């Protein structure tokens, strides 16, 4: 995958490791390390904050949101508890299921493994921000058409993973789709329909 190459160059600093561990798809953490450590400086990196709540601003789904969070809050907690964006799900809270996948500067990360304070001025996109002006993303439509959701609890994470794949690779093979969703856990077993839906969406976009 393109990201892997882009990111691996940055190397693994200890802080970078912690931050980058938020990247989606368990098992490839080391490869994708360092996203949040790259280039931009975090607004709060140099001053000491906490342990009490602090006010931060975050760009979520194209809007600037004010949040009051404890410095230990993960991005998943901040999104769910502070601004009620509960489409992002928390299941394992340790980077093993990708139910919490969101995009930070267009890279899928596990929001449960990312400190909210480390987001800084990067752009966060959640499942609620994927549809544009009320028009569903082709992946969302394809998930409906091919019944790629059962209980639906893994669905936001699956969609954030597959929608990102199509951005990076408009002509995915079945193997590419499996690769892109390899960290997404679904107990209902929607995988075959997720694969079908993603391949169908790719065709439609073309």
């Amino acid at each position, binding site marked *: 995958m393109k990201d892997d190459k882009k990111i691996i160059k940055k190397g693994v600093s200890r802080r970078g490791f912690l931050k980058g561990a938020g990247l989606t798809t368990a098992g490839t953490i080391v490869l994708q390390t360092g996203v949040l450590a790259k280039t931009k400086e975090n607004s709060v990196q140099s001053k000491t904050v906490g342990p009490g709540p602090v006010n931060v601003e975050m760009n979520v789904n194209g809007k600037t949101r004010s949040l009051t969070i404890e410095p230990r809050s993960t991005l998943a907690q901040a999104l769910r508890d502070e601004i009620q*964006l509960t489409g992002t799900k928390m*299941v394992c809270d340790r980077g093993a299921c990708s139910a919490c996948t969101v995009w930070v500067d267009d890279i899928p990360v596990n929001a449960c493994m990312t400190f909210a304070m480390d987001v800084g001025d990067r752009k966060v996109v959640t499942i609620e921000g994927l549809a544009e002006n009320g028009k569903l993303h082709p992946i969302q439509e394809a998930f409906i058409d091919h019944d790629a959701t059962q209980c*639906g609890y893994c669905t936001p994470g699956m969609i954030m993973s597959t929608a990102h794949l199509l951005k990076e690779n408009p002509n995915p093979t079945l193997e590419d789709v499996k690769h892109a969703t390899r960290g997404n856990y679904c*107990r209902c077993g929607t*995988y075959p329909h*997720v694969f079908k839906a993603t391949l169908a969406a790719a065709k439609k976009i073309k």
Partner: protein
Amino acid sequence: MDTKKIKMPYGISEDAITEVEREVPLNEPDAWPVNEKLKHVGKRVKRLDAYAKVTGEARYTSDIQLSGMLIGKMLISAHPNAKIRSIDTSAAEKLPGVYAVHVIKNEEEEAYPVVRYAGQPIAAAAAVTEAVAEEAVRLIKVDYDTRPFVVDIEKAMDPEAPVVYEAPVEQKASEGGEEIESGLKLTGNVRGPNEGRPRGELTSGFAEADIVVENTYRTQVQTHNALESHGMIVDWKPDGVTIYASTQGTQGVRNEFADLFDLPRSKVRVLVEFMGGGFGAKHGLGTHGAAAGHLAKKTGRPVKMMATRKEEQISQGNRPNSIHHLKVGVKKSGELTAIEQKSYGTAGVGLGAGVGGVAQSMYTCPNFKTAQYDVFTHAGPGAAWRAPGAVQGIFGLEQMMDELAEKIGIDPLAFRDKVDPSRVRKAGRKVGAERMDWSRRKPTGSDPGIIKKGIGMAQSSWWRIHSINATAEVKIFKDGAIEVRSGVQDIGTGTKTILAQVVAEEFGLEPEDIMVRIGDTLFPDAPGSGGSQVTASITPAARNAAYQAKLKLFNMVASNLETDVSDLKAADGYIFSSKDETKKMTFKEALKSMPVSQITATESRTKEYDGDYLHWDLGAVQFVELSVDTETGFIKIDKVVAAHSCGRPINITQLESQINGGIIQGISYAIYEDRILDRNTGHMVNHTLDTYKVPYAMDIPEIDIALMEDYNAKSSTDAYGIGEPSNIATAAAIANAVYNAIGVRIKEIPITPAKVLEALNKA
């Protein structure tokens, strides 16, 4: 009851469909023709709530935040067997932000319950945030008097083993779970035997056999691991309690809550709009629901208690393991002469580890005897999980059938043709064999090379379970709106959508025209999602209610159309006279002309038209193709073909989704997952999602589903569920395919690489 005689379709699509006459209640509609002739039923209608799910708008219990809501956390036992001397909650209560602490006590004696497994809930605290509640729980001091314990089933069967219960215990089965026989003897930790329904006589049966095979099969404990954990929000107001529950049974939660707190059922309302997976484990109030109730009562604030992932794995249910002995006699001609079965299984501190149903009922055999035992261990309680008992039972039985076929020298499919009376499985074997191309299956162990391919099959049965305690209300409004209401829940199976399809079919409208409101005990009662009974129970109720509402409407508009009520029909958005189709009006016009603002009809499921109660014939046949790497021991599942029946299928795509899920969970059971308890501490060592091995995208094979229409003329929809049937045969089919690939039988799951290598080394 007034009845009428009607003709109904009867038979299997892959075989032949004829007609049968049934005497049915007068107030129920005439039979639908076969699916081909219907507009919405049996079609690929899109899931109605998919939009909410793909946009993140769907609100699950875990997502709900109420104003003033507190978060509750549970203190769980650190020891597997202990008496509690004292519990000191004072520090926790003093912590700023803590509103209440609740200590779990036995109802009658007001005593602390005995701790019987590591992870057993002991107390709960409610606080302003999750972090404060967690801190409060850490501050609760428990003085334990610890005792010896046993977590291993075989050790627990030893008469010297520490006992889990001092006196015989009775428990009720969880909804959809294996029947629990009452009054059985308890010897040490071993409860039983449950002797099922024996028939014939074994000694003469085995004497008649040309070949007798005896084997022991073992299955592991697996944990449900739904994505949304167990949990509830209890909002206790003076005039009534509202509960938001991650549940697969609204009325079960209401009834248990009302009983526990001595409230009339009318004062308890249970809601579940979206629910993140259950698979059998989410029936009833549960530990977290009860604790939330106590804390809400104490604080006067809404309290939310969701289980942590660790608690989910330890205390919120699992599929019991099994040690399953089978001895079967067969004649060279292929007749079974005797089946003797004995099984042990542990549901931890719970009951329900029987595996006997399938060996007892599936095949024609005059002599049968069973003895099934539950073994108590110091481990979290089991719970129903998709086809409880049958999944474990089939793992042994279907390997045994393959072995017998091999011993008498006939093909596994041909052998089943001889001993299996099920028409639907016969049809399933035929389509499945074609789609898998069974003829290319090589003789066992003959594939050369390091990676060996194998093909295998297994089949299963499940009951046609239905509940007459299933009611739906249909409302039609003057402005054209149509609503169906029922207390039934949609746990991801697609209940909302099939109700819309059924009602749309009856009215001649589109499924999108129907507003389905379910998952709320303010609406009429319906059964929990267990035993694959929801479709069978609630779709006839909804159709019957729609039919009655339609008749009321016909009565109101017949004079406008100058026709007899009995001539009126509804189809394609119109109401018209079947005698003179020029006499018609749109459905909307008809509604507008109503002299009232709304028509309501409420109807229930009635008993099966043929008087049957439970019929053991929801058949399935699954085929598996796989590759075994004989150097690493890794198994890759290449393809699964599944031929299934569920009566009249209502939504093809949703059924396929559910079958995929059943198969994938079966693959997981066969080769991956295993709950591991540490013998020295009694704790589960792999309770995190990264250590509890399940399949992910890279492990998913191609799945090809043949859904058979199987008309039995039993209700006004003649439809049944697929949740249980889809999960039963997969593990056995995999084991049979592994044998075909490597020529060694592995009789214990999960079939890990280590077990494959060990088997190969022994061979």
